[in-house]
């Protein structure tokens, strides 16, 4: 009887419950843990989405004990969680929350961790299931992964490893990193987080395209004039000069978030919504992606300017940035996806810091109506149809259409039909990390980046960056609070197009 399926479960709105497990967070004293991971775990606990038996172990160099760690995490939840703080929920989450202070440079720390995790496992019957979250700088990856790998032999239960970006610095280092990870973990055990994929609106791109019969037939070169993807931030580098100086906009945003958005926009319909099917289609797009040459890529760096009425310093004046830094804080590019669907259809992408406002959008601009039978002046206010996916803020979808202005005669202008997520669906949107942590606990890799995707992304970045070695643009070349350097406008003007108005 126990082997037969439980007929009482049929029809119950049972979300798949993750197996009991322990989550080990390396970098537990860091910003990511405070601002994202712990609030996400709290939100999952509020919604009873965590496994019935669950333990958390924080690992960091900072000397502290279990109580101090719990107190610190409690404060983080109070400050950053999207739900009201409830003592009963917190007590449940904190019941099996422990801390290990180690820098992993000595075997003692690794053994201490292993011993603690084994104890928690035995006490709570966790079945040997473990999730290791590397919320640490990449330089620490190999030490930790090596140590974990060496202690895994013969371990029972499942093991999953969450890796935060950056996944390497270029193709060679990404391959090295992947090889190092694969030495101890198989691909289905590795969960590379690109938190953009956890955003509801990004996933809605798949719903929009593949759940609606009206879009897919026109989602191609015949009807689409071009695509514009914008990932704009109004903030600067927020004290992260050490990282940003070596990364720049191309590694910080382009290599990961932006190319993922592009892949979801351009991919073919997957045969199903499993991790492998979705990632197979994305990687095909990344393989087909190219930029027609150095002139199709623009880089910029912000100078002084005004953001929201406040004067802000130039990038080179930010603390920790070299006064002659050549790091780009802005990239715009014209890309092509060389396949049957998108041949000769440009994908214009731009991303940068200290731009006029925070905005992430994907805009599909359709071709003009072939022969509007109106007088020329009637349609002066008419622009081509644009379908805009607002990833953030104002999450939703807009369709720009031409409509007659009421009154005598035939005056046509562009109006927006808006679908605003917060308007139609009144439940609070989950944070990306909630979805991604839960998916990891469930072993669902659909919203994570596969090794071959990462490598294809780096291949393109390396090609772009390689060309940058030969010239030295006059930085800064755009004022903070603007939409980037004039050369970015020229990139589209040369094709008889322009960036979307805001």
């Amino acid at each position, binding site marked *: 009887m*126990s082997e037969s399926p439980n007929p009482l*479960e*049929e029809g119950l709105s049972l979300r798949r419950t993750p197996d009991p497990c322990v989550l080990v967070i390396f970098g537990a004293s860091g910003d990511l843990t405070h601002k994202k991971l712990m609030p996400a775990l709290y939100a999952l606990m509020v919604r009873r989405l965590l496994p019935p038996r669950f333990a958390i172990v924080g690992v960091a160099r900072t000397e502290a004990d279990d109580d101090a760690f719990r107190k610190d995490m409690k404060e983080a939840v109070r400050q950053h969680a999207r739900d009201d703080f409830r003592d009963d929920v917190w007590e449940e989450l904190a019941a099996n929350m422990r801390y290990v202070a180690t820098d992993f440079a000595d075997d003692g720390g690794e053994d201490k961790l292993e011993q603690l995790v084994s104890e928690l496992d035995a006490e709570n019957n966790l079945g040997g299931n473990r999730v290791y979250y590397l919320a640490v700088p990449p330089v620490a990856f190999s030490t930790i992964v090596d140590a974990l790998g060496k202690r895994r032999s013969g371990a029972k239960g499942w093991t999953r490893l969450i890796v935060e970006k950056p996944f390497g610095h270029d193709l060679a280092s990404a391959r090295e990193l992947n090889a190092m990870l694969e030495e101890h973990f198989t691909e289905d055990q590795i969960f590379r987080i690109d938190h953009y994929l956890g955003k509801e609106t990004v996933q809605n791109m798949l719903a929009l395209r593949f759940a609606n019969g009206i879009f897919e037939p026109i989602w191609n070169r015949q009807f689409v004039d071009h695509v514009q993807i914008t990932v704009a931030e109004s903030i600067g580098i927020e004290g992260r000069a050490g990282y940003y100086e070596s990364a720049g906009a191309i590694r910080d945003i382009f290599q990961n978030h932006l190319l993922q958005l592009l892949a979801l926009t351009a991919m073919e319909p997957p045969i199903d919504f499993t991790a492998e099917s979705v990632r197979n289609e994305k990687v095909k797009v990344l393989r087909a992606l190219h930029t027609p040459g150095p002139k199709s890529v623009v880089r910029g760096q912000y100078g002084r300017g005004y953001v929201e009425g406040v004067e802000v310093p130039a990038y080179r004046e930010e603390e920790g940035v070299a006064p002659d830094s050549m790091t780009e804080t802005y990239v715009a590019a014209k890309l092509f996806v060389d396949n049957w669907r998108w041949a000769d259809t440009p994908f214009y992408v731009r991303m940068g810091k200290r731009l006029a406002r925070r905005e992430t959008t994907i805009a599909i601009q359709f071709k003009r109506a072939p022969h509007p039978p109106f007088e020329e002046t009637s349609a002066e206010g008419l622009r081509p149809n644009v379908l805009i996916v607002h990833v953030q803020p104002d999450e939703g979808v807009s369709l720009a259409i031409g409509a007659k202005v009421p009154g005598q005669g035939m005056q046509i202008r562009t109006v927006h039909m808006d679908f605003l997520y917060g308007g139609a669906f009144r439940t609070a949107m989950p944070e990306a990390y909630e979805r991604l942590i839960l998916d990891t606990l469930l072993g669902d890799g659909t919203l994570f980046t596969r090794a071959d995707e990462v490598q294809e992304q780096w291949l393109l970045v390396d090609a772009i960056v390689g060309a940058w070695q030969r010239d030295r643009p006059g930085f800064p070349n755009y004022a903070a609070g603007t939409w980037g350097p004039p050369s970015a406008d020229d990139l589209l003007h040369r094709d008889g197009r322009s960036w979307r108005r805001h």
Partner: protein
Amino acid sequence: MSAAGLERWLGEDVALADVGNAMARLRAESPVEGMRTSVMTHIAWVPEPWIDKARAALSGMGERHPSRTIVLIPDSDAGTNRIDATASLERYAIPGVEQNISSEVIELRLLGTRAKAPASIVEPLLISDLPVFLRWRGEPPWGAPELEQLVDLTDRLIVDSTEWDDLPFPYSHLVELFERTAVSDIAWARTSRWRMLLASLWPGIAHVRTIRVRGTAAQAHLLAGWLRSRLERDDIALEHVEAERLEAVEVDGEPAAFPPGDPPLPSDVLSDELDRFTRDRIYEDAVRATIA
């Protein structure tokens, strides 16, 4: 949760066109610009004794499910034949966005003979192409024209069999509607936490002989019906101890643990039912098993 803004229009002895015009005027004249976003038409059939409870459950529903809500208050014994109407626009701020959404609530008092053909009153007010949910307060008048008409209009009928007398007999009438529209039962929804808990007792629970339920009659019958239908056994006995809410379940004398968390509020239960679109075959089987 209160509306961020609310405008209201009242009319006596109205034509439906008056209601439509009033609603358009409310939208046009509103001092606050609001998006008109709708995901459904929500009809509530609310006989007089249920008005207060219905208003409480509907309060804020427009915020969770932006919709046009049409509350029908029948009074066929009124000495006059007419429709009195209240139309109001409820506006809710969208968090993090400088916009409001508006929900429309139309309350129609169907007096005298005007209560006889409610479908003809509702039909012109439905929002095209969106699902229609019908919440019926109290026990439906099985076979009566008003029920028959409205059932044919709706995609989902929502009842609360806790509000019915002489259970399980009325379920035999409800069964007849299953092929015509999807049915939700608030009483059934309220057993979900207990069903999950009982499901966790598998496989031992497969041999249950008697289930003792302290709760409403509806919950007791539905839980027993559920076990009978899922386990494909018609020999499971029910012992029912009346209580206002589902408080305890015993399986062959063994008390089941109390499910974790708090019981949902009435508006939360209704809200969840408004998110469902397909037939609930498990519920239908459970209802059939209550009267087998």
